[in-house]
């Protein structure tokens, strides 16, 4: 179970077809999603996570259609995402950002009124996630004051705090140093080893090839190739796209 199925998804923005009949399935893997700028990668994430309704097609998760679900309900199903343009709660501390994710199961219940969000139990849970994402030293800093690389990790930490089974990471390595990128890859492998399925959008071909078990290539809204990293690397069409001949 916990299979994500994207079926014939298209998304039209006025005259622009950002996604064109995209179909794939994924389950229990680190799946890479690559493609040039404007290929439709983020749009695909927006459709899966409910932020955009597809013009055509459907997304199924865990055996059920996500058609009628709004974003805050999709997280509750165990499908969490990060944003390419990071969206930390700037005025809140790193700890409170993580706690905001940890509270996910409570927000729709009356308990949310009566329970305090700072308790030894909640803080311990958040601290574990901070340790895992290497954010412990920033715990009490305001999110807006952090360097971009740290904000990207916070973005992941907050998504992780919702305890998802499935993680959608939108260019988590963008703007990171080589060293930071390597520890990010390590973190993603750890998460996968702990049973999470992951789709990661990545610009850097080498990074994706190294990290992912399978790769999807989007170009101008179309899924032009999918397969093992080695096959993708030698795929004519992919090479053309990346050399800009298309």
């Amino acid at each position, binding site marked *: 179970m916990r299979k994500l199925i994207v079926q014939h998804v298209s998304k039209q923005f006025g005259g622009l077809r950002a996604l064109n009949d995209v179909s794939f399935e994924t389950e229990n893997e680190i799946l890479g999603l690559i493609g040039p700028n404007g290929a439709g990668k983020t749009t695909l994430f927006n459709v899966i996570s409910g932020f955009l309704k597809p013009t055509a097609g459907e997304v199924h998760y865990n055996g059920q259609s996500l058609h009628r679900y709004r974003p*805050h309900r999709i*997280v509750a199903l165990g499908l969490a995402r990060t944003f390419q343009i990071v969206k930390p709660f700037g*005025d809140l501390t790193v700890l409170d950002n993580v706690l905001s994710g940890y509270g*996910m199961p409570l927000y*729709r219940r009356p308990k949310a009124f009566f329970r305090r969000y700072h308790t030894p139990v909640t803080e311990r849970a958040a601290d574990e996630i901070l340790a895992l994402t290497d954010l412990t030293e920033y715990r009490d800093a*305001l999110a807006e004051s952090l*360097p971009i690389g740290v904000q990207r990790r916070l973005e992941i930490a907050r998504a992780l705090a919702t305890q998802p089974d499935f993680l959608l990471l939108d260019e988590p390595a963008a703007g990171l140093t080589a060293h930071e990128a390597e520890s990010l890859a390590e973190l993603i492998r750890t998460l996968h080893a702990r049973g999470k399925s992951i789709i990661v959008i990545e610009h850097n071909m080498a990074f994706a090839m190294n990290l992912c078990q399978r790769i999807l290539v989007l170009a101008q809204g179309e899924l032009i190739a999918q397969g093992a990293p080695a096959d993708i690397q030698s795929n004519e069409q992919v090479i053309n796209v990346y050399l800009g001949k298309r």
Partner: protein
Amino acid sequence: MSGYVISVAIFVGIWVTLALSLNILTGYAGQVSLGHAAFFGIGAYASAVMAVRYGQPFWVDFIAAIIITGVVGTILGLPSLRVRHDFLVLATMGINFVVVALFKYVDFFGGAMGLVNIPAPSFFGATFRGGTPYLILVWLYVLFVWAVSWYISKSWVGLAFNAIRLDEDAAAAVGIGAARFKIYAFGISAALAGGAGSLYAHFIGSVFPDTFVFVESIAILSMVVFGGMGTLRGPIVGAIILKAAPEFLRFVQDYRFTIYGALLVLMMLFQPMGLLGDDSWLWQQLKRWFGRKSAPPKVSEEVTP
């Protein structure tokens, strides 16, 4: 204390609860409202109607005012879910005008002549209009509204309010549906303002539409912004200063609303966090004098290798 000072302290207490209640909607949840006086008025009129038309005692009027205003506030908050931020300001303004018009033109509400002869509250057989017992009652309500505000700020709902104020998309990504929490904020904020309205109606003994007009909404918002939106101390201090000053400085009284408006603009320009907001000059000074722990450290200066 002279009767006059007691009266002023009663008014100030009522306006402190108005500022604190608006602060939940605007300071916590980020929904700027220019219609808070409407909820104040609905509470006052609900109370007056219960007392004058149905002969109910003070406690019944008071509880009814809180419930009725909370329900109406929740319903009036619904359209605001569909409008963008800047239009919310207009929508709440519109609500204020409509509510005042209803008070004015519906006979049941007494029309322009208002509702008069609201009986003085009585407790344990003793009847009183104003005076020290009423002052205590009003400030007990201040304590209650303060406690509610404080508790919310510590609860998961408070964290969710922060989240939708700061970024609705990010909030959705952690399971916080903005609509639900906007409605909560409208409902709670309105209910608490309704209690203030009831206390006002029973203190004055009559209600008139003109008390609850749009400029009063601006006055209440000024108190919140002036003191420091989103904090607990800010709206309290803002309401005390801006409500008490005109009472003691006669010349200010006539230009009250002009001064409120000017203050609002000046604050937005020079101290957007308000007099006592977390980053405000005055609050930083106070913290230094009293040696309190400073705000969370900023680390943006750090150089990443």
